């Protein structure tokens, strides 16, 4: 469908391909393994729970990824980001007013809240339209949005609504009347007081201080109080035409919202939520990059880090290690070995995140990157907190492996972290090689983290990576190509860092 046709059908989506029908509760399996949950927890704090669902769904084709990537590149431009953030804030005000309207009981008050809601809504779109018109937009999605908004605010239907509501609000706001409380009665008359607030002026002159006016004494009550209702009843008698018109305009515009824009309002939060996180993390010294997507160039990244770790680490002010990697021509699978606590899992996770963020059309946590197109993302991490051990754990691992291996997508990216740790090594080596062979046979790319150096044995497409130690045998958390060693005994290191059971008991 062309964009125009989509717009006409009310189907325009700034996410394109986000499926409204998908079950928002379904969480992809890689989600937990890659610690995406922690990233979303962080995003949710600012943007609310509803934003999560947009991150759950992987676009079904390359075009959608590209579409989003170009939208995001527009969103990242400061004036566009600023305009959209302002718009979101304005829309929050609209829903606040809508909340007031829904709470209101008095039909007149309801009507006025609606008129005010429309005004706020129109202001927001007019401002956004103006800002987008003034910014150079390069993405198809944002250009369409600009045109949709432009057409909308020029439409006769919109103009009519805008004029009527403005006139009404103008009249309400300029209405002045005098309340006189005397002899146990309140009387109401149209007009102004002769002294323009003579008493408060007298008091201000006498006692100084900045100008302050008396506030509505019934303000804590959002409804129209009986007192105010009595006043309004008198005003109604005095201005019957106005109140009649108010009712008419309100009922004609009760359903004022534009459907196609409703969808945009919800979806734009996807980009803004990530951009906000990016800016915050950039402020802490982390970098992000729009990934290149050239299939002919090797898949690689420089300064790749685990975003989830970075988010949780900021509080403790720990350094988050970043790594470079490259899949040279013919490389299909990294097999990563090295000492415990050497950064293997973190690296695997960051690789998975790289593919994930590329797939959903956003920036990746790296200095620069080129990422190939994959139809899917498969992960398998051992469940550390699993109460199962021995045969039970092996069984559980295998059960989870089955659907992965059954997913016969040609070009999935596969992240496997420590399979078969509880099996006998002899068995584990054989099983590991089989699994690797399976995915290699399918033409997948990926990474396999293991303690078994035998899995790095030379084979087509297999690259051996190691988590490096420094000359003192201390973890550097750096990952690089190299032959797998036997894992060194960690006793000294543990002692050195005072991490034995006894030492920890003493320290804590």
């Amino acid at each position: 469908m062309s964009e125009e046709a989509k717009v006409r059908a009310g189907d325009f989506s700034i996410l394109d391909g986000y499926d409204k029908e998908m079950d928002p509760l379904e969480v992809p399996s890689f989600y937990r393994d890659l610690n995406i949950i922690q990233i979303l927890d962080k995003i949710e704090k600012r943007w609310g729970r509803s934003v999560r669902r947009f991150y759950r769904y992987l676009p079904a084709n390359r075009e959608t990824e590209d579409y989003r990537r170009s939208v995001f590149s527009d969103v990242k431009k400061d004036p566009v980001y600023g305009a959209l953030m302002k718009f979101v804030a304005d829309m929050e005000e609209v829903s606040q007013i809508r909340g007031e309207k829904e709470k209101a009981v008095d039909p007149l008050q309801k009507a006025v809240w609606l008129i005010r809601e429309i005004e706020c809504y129109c202001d927001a779109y007019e401002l956004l339209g103006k800002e987008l018109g003034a910014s150079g937009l390069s993405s198809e999605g944002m250009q369409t949005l600009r045109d949709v908004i432009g057409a909308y605010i020029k439409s006769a239907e919109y103009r009519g609504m805008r004029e009527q509501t403005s006139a009404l609000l103008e009249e309400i706001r300029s209405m002045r009347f005098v309340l006189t409380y005397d002899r146990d009665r309140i009387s109401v008359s149209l007009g102004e007081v002769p002294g323009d607030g003579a008493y408060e002026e007298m008091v201000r002159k006498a006692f100084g201080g900045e100008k302050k006016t008396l506030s509505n004494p019934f303000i804590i009550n959002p409804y129209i109080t009986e007192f105010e209702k009595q006043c309004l009843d008198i005003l109604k008698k005095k201005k019957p035409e106005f109140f009649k018109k108010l009712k008419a305009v309100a009922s004609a515009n009760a359903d004022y919202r534009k459907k196609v824009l409703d969808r945009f309002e919800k979806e734009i939060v996807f980009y803004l939520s990530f951009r906000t996180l990016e800016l915050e993390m950039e402020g802490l010294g982390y970098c992000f990059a729009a990934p290149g997507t050239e299939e002919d160039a090797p898949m690689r990244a420089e300064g790749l880090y685990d975003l989830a770790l970075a988010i949780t680490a900021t509080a403790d002010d720990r350094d988050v290690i970043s790594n470079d990697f490259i899949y040279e021509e013919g490389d299909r699978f990294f097999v990563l070995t090295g000492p415990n606590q050497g950064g293997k899992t973190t690296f695997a996770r960051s690789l998975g995140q790289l593919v994930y963020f590329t797939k959903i059309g956003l920036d990746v946590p790296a200095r620069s990157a080129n990422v190939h197109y994959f139809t899917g993302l498969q992960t398998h991490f051992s469940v550390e907190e699993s109460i199962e051990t021995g045969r039970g754990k092996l069984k559980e691992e295998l059960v989870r492996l089955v659907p992965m291996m059954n997913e016969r997508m040609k070009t999935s990216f596969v992240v496997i972290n420590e399979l078969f740790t509880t099996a006998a090594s002899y068995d584990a080596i054989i099983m590991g090689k089989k699994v690797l062979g399976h995915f290699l046979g399918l033409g997948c790319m990926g990474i396999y983290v293991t303690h078994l150096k035998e899995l790095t044995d030379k084979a087509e497409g297999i690259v051996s990576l190691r988590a490096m130690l420094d000359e003192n045998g201390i973890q550097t958390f750096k990952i690089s190509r190299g032959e797998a060693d036997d894992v060194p005994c960690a006793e000294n290191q543990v002692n050195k860092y005072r991490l034995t059971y006894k030492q920890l008991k003493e320290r804590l």
Partner: protein
Amino acid sequence: MKVCLLYENNERLIGEGYYDQESIIQDLGLKSVFSVSAKDLVYEDGNVKKVEQEDLFLTDALRRVMMVPLRTKEEIVYRQEIVKDFLANEEQVRELYDISRDVVFKWGTLGKIPGEKAKQSNPVTRLTTDIRIIRLLCDSLSRVRHVMEEGWEPSSKGLKNFKKDLSLNFSREREENIRRVLDDISFYTDGSDEEDSGKGRTVKPRIVLESGLEDGLKLSSLKLEEVSSSGTKFYRPGSTMDKIQNFKNSLIPDSFPVVGDVRIAEQTDLLEFGVVSFLVDRIRGFIDEFQSFFTQLKFQSGFYLAAVQLKAQMERFGVGFCYPEVCGNRDMEFADLKELVMAVEQRVVVIGNSCRFDKKDLLIITGANQGGKSTFLRSIGIAQVMMQCGLPVAAARYKSGIFPGIFVHFTRREDSEMNSGRLDEELKRMNGIVENLREDSLLLLNESFATTTEKEGSVIAYDIIKALVEAGVRIFTVTHLLSFARRVHEEMKDDPDSAVEFLSAERKENGVRTYRMIRHEPELTSFGLDLYEEIVEKNVSI
């Protein structure tokens, strides 16, 4: 507004005051000074007819002020001048004190302590309390202004400033403004004041305001045009007159009654509350400005009232007084200096001493028991403390330096048993003093280190005193440690510019004590001690 009668530019006492005030008060017997100053004397035909009960607030005020020394001559003169003003105008200081005491008390009964946030959670009660406080402040300030402006002309800088500040900060114009608003909102409190009920009249408000409509059709951007209260005749609800009145009112066009419907009545109360608290908020600065004024005035005028009453007591017990003068720290001169506490407590005629020390750092007083040595030492201590808080002292003339650090180290004979625990305690106290010594310190030692052998005590005293004097501390010591005294004497006797002075209680040849101190080298009072001293000297002066 600040009271500033204790310091020209400071409302509160500056600094923490003397170290170990309890010891100073106890050893110098200052409690008697505090309490006697807190009692008013009632005269009849020139005789004391009645001694009023002690005002414990005054006792405390005097204690607190006396325990924080002034540091400059100007500060001392500032207070002395005010004391002079008030001695000539006793009525005024008494009134200032009475008014401020009254305010603090009434403020307390309103459920608030000046300077503290209201405890009431009910906003209406809080508001009416605020209104009453404003009224109380207004009335009381106007009384204070009256006291300051009628019938006398203060000559001290402090009182002149106070009078000027008051007429600036509580001008007649300001008072009028406040009273006008108070009158206009009297409808809010008058109904609940006891004196207004049962008179057949009620006070009713008239409020005119302009309003617009907010987006939610609620009243907004209000302009307050008119507020006033007027008394009207009260008719019993439901009575014929009430009905007639209601009917007449109902003829007002485009109006609705605020009585009858509970909701409207409640909301009208809110309106009244809103208007009144808006106005009270504007005046609240007045409360803030004066919230600690009366607490301070009570305290500060309390100090001067105590001074005035102390002077009356001194006259009553035949003790003269003078305003001390400030001179260099190594000099001291006084004439007819009397021990005030003894005069007050024992009501006997106390012998005055006259002395002059030039460039002396150490004063050693020796001599027979019961010769008035301790009394003499105390008289200096008391005078010094009184001088340093701006009070007159019990002497014909008193001239001394300023010692922001006054330290006392007294051993009271009756409990000076010889044991190591007592010595330990003495040394510990000395250690505390040493830790807290500052520039311009004066140390009064009375029979220090008498809790051990004379020999040991002498060595300890010698070492400590020598070190302290060298560090610039002035020391006046009464001692029985003759080996100590002799040793010092031996060292200085050939030096005409010695910084040490020896005094002794005078004893006539017939053995009669005069209770006067005279210059006298330390003498040996008995053969035994002489012998002891020699042995000690041999053992010590290596």
